């Protein structure tokens, strides 16, 4: 014989929102999302429910009923997230917890309740804790999932004694059987207001009129049909710890400890196909001081030797003084190592791995910001004609343009130069840069590049490629038109 507990959270999402923002606790608020061009309420707070505001109503109508109503945007997928977190919390009460969408949990409490001194105390304990977190909960315990579900939602009777499902279900409305709205409507039309009205009918009759689901649900609630719940699997944190008998004060000792921890962590990564992206190595000193070193990798890795190398540079920063008594290695950020990730460029995946490891080692010295790769961006403005690849292995979406001459060295900021030009819109005859005079022999241009008004304000630039007597080429531009008295000229780059 099994025992199940069903927990119902009537105001799950709103109470979760109030937990995040305590100032919402006593306000009338709803969570709404846009549907077919209007805002529709997804869930309401307990105060709003008292004002007769229910999920499914349109926000505009509710505003008319209650003008002070506060509206928050609901996030999709949040129910699953919150329920998952609650289910993980419930692991403390039973190892088998399952999520019951959209607003409940089901606990398989076989052999668990006596640890709390009976089902009554067990149930009270859960209720008290969840209420302490700010959730309104209804719980019921019964032999079957179906009965527990029905009692939690439709009755105040909390604990159904073993084998009593038939008796307690009789007085409940048909909705307590978890059946579809269509069947419910049919039942109402036929005047079957309570479960007792149709429970005794032979299953063949029910099946003919309402389909197989009704008799199946009744059988599930009574226990003649088994119902399987799918328990959640909590994720164990990626953490390894190592206690040492004697305090460790040498770099050699620390590296041995680190190697051991890495070994056991990498074995787990291997089994799960994961790789480390971010690792923290904590050392607990005898006097209670905790020190840590941190590393990051550019691509997920589970190569022990490589990870050790990354940590190795930083071991010297630890201050053992009297020695460390415990070491903990944690991987707060992990990622799946997938085969498609290894396809960068045309080289082999073995090569990619080597490059990634080299870049990780470099990143330890310089920081990840110092490593960049560029992709073409569809802009004419020189400073914006390329963008950084994020992540580093991103593939270019467009081709690099080669139709215009571009200087191989570009100054980060254009530097002002003094020029002499014969006529407006003519290339300069000579220009002075950093106190030196350059005579222009040949020139090409102008190439006008307009400022992209939707991105930034500013004048257009007329670019000239000019060549001096020695053959050196420079990229000059005049900022804006000639109609002002002194148009400004700048040097922006050097051609090869």
């Amino acid at each position, binding site marked *: 014989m099994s025992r199940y507990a069903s927990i119902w959270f009537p105001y799950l999402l709103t109470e979760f929102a109030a937990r995040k923002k305590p100032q919402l606790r006593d306000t009338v608020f709803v969570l709404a999302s846009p549907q077919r061009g209007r805002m529709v309420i997804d869930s309401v707070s307990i105060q709003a429910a008292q004002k007769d505001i229910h999920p499914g109503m349109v926000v505009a109508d509710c505003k008319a009923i209650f003008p002070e109503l506060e509206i928050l945007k609901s996030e999709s997928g949040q129910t699953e997230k919150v329920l998952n977190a609650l289910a993980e919390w419930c692991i403390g009460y039973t190892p088998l917890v399952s999520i019951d969408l959209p607003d409940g949990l089901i606990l398989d409490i076989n052999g668990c309740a006596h640890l709390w001194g009976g089902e009554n105390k067990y149930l009270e304990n859960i209720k008290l804790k969840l209420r302490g977190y700010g959730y309104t909960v209804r719980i019921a315990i019964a032999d079957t999932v179906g009965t527990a579900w029905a009692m939690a939602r439709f009755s105040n009777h909390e604990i159904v004694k073993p084998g009593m499902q038939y008796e307690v279900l009789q007085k409940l409305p048909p909705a307590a059987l978890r059946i579809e709205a269509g069947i419910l409507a049919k039942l109402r039309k036929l005047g079957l207001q309570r479960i007792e009205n149709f429970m005794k009918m032979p299953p063949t009759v029910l099946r003919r009129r309402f389909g197989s689901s009704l008799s199946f649900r009744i059988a599930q609630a009574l226990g003649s049909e088994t119902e399987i719940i799918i328990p959640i699997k909590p994720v164990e944190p990626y953490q390894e710890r190592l206690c040492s008998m004697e305090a460790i004060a040498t770099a050699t000792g620390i590296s041995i400890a680190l190697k051991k921890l890495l070994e056991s962590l990498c074995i787990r990564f291997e089994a799960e196909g994961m790789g480390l992206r971010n690792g923290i190595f904590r050392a607990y000193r005898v006097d209670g001081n905790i020190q840590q070193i941190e590393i990051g990798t550019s691509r997920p890795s589970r190569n022990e030797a490589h990870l050790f190398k990354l940590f190795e540079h930083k071991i010297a920063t630890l201050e053992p003084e009297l020695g460390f008594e415990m070491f903990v290695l944690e991987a707060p950020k992990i990622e799946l190592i997938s085969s498609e990730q290894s396809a960068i*460029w*045309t*080289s082999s995946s*073995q*090569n*990619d*791995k*080597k*490059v990634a490891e*080299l*870049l990780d*080692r*470099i990143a330890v*010295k*310089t920081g990840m910001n*110092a*490593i*960049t*790769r*560029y*992709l*073409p961006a569809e802009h004419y403005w*020189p400073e914006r*004609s*390329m963008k950084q*690849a994020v992540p*580093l292995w991103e*593939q*270019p979406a467009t081709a*690099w*343009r*080669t139709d215009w*001459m*571009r*200087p*191989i*060295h*570009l*100054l980060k900021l254009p530097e002002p130069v003094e020029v002499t030009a014969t006529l407006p819109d003519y290339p300069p005859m000579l220009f002075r840069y950093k106190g030196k005079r350059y005579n222009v*022999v*040949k*020139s*090409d241009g102008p190439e006008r590049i307009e400022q992209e008004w939707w991105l930034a304000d500013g004048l257009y630039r007329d670019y000239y*490629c*000019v*060549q001096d*007597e*020695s*053959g*050196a*080429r*420079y990229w000059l531009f005049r900022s804006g038109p000639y109609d002002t008295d002194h148009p400004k000229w700048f040097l922006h*780059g*050097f*051609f*090869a």
Partner: protein
Amino acid sequence: MEKQELAKQLQAKINAMQGLGKLSEASTASDLYPFTTAFPGHIFPTSAIHEFVSYEPADAASTSGFITALTGKFMKAGGLCLWIGNGRKVFPTALKHFGLQPDQIIFINAPKLKDVLWIIEEALKCEALTAVVGEICELGFTESRRFQLAAERSGIIGFVHRYRPKMENATACTTRWKITPLPATIEEGLPGVGHSLWNVELVKVKNGRPASWQVSFVDDHFHEQIEKQITLYTNHDRNAV
């Protein structure tokens, strides 16, 4: 005939020992003509360090262009290049003009000279790369020796661009180049500046003959300007006569 073949192989082995790099497909290709003529066995040394020295901003730009063009020749079949420097000046958008896909390069910006040296050496040890370009000012003999050994072992080509060094000290690099821009030769009466033309000076080369060329890079190929220059001179001479 067999003896000649044997001698050739032995010579290649000796070259490898002398830091002129191993034989490789790319280095024998005609892509790198005319520079191959200066090297023993007409083989452009890969798995070696090439040093470039420049003093003026324009010379530095030409040097960058020349390095890019050379790197592009080695990266034709894909691969990856690391461009290590302090304060990046190279404009990736322009690199495509010299036959190098800018997205095949990873730029690393390290402010400290010590870090730059360390990164160049680590990169040269990584066989997965095709080329490494380092932009540093000072390069001592010891460091250059380390680079050269790392490159010889891993088989990748290294370029070190020294901009305004205090002195041109002796290094263990296989070559030393100086690239300066030249006024382009364009047909009479045509406007514009034409294709860039470089004076490529091979100042030092192990076991080879230092030489200099006037080279332009057009349509993914080096073009030597020698004939045009000669005809120009001859015309001039004729006029003089």
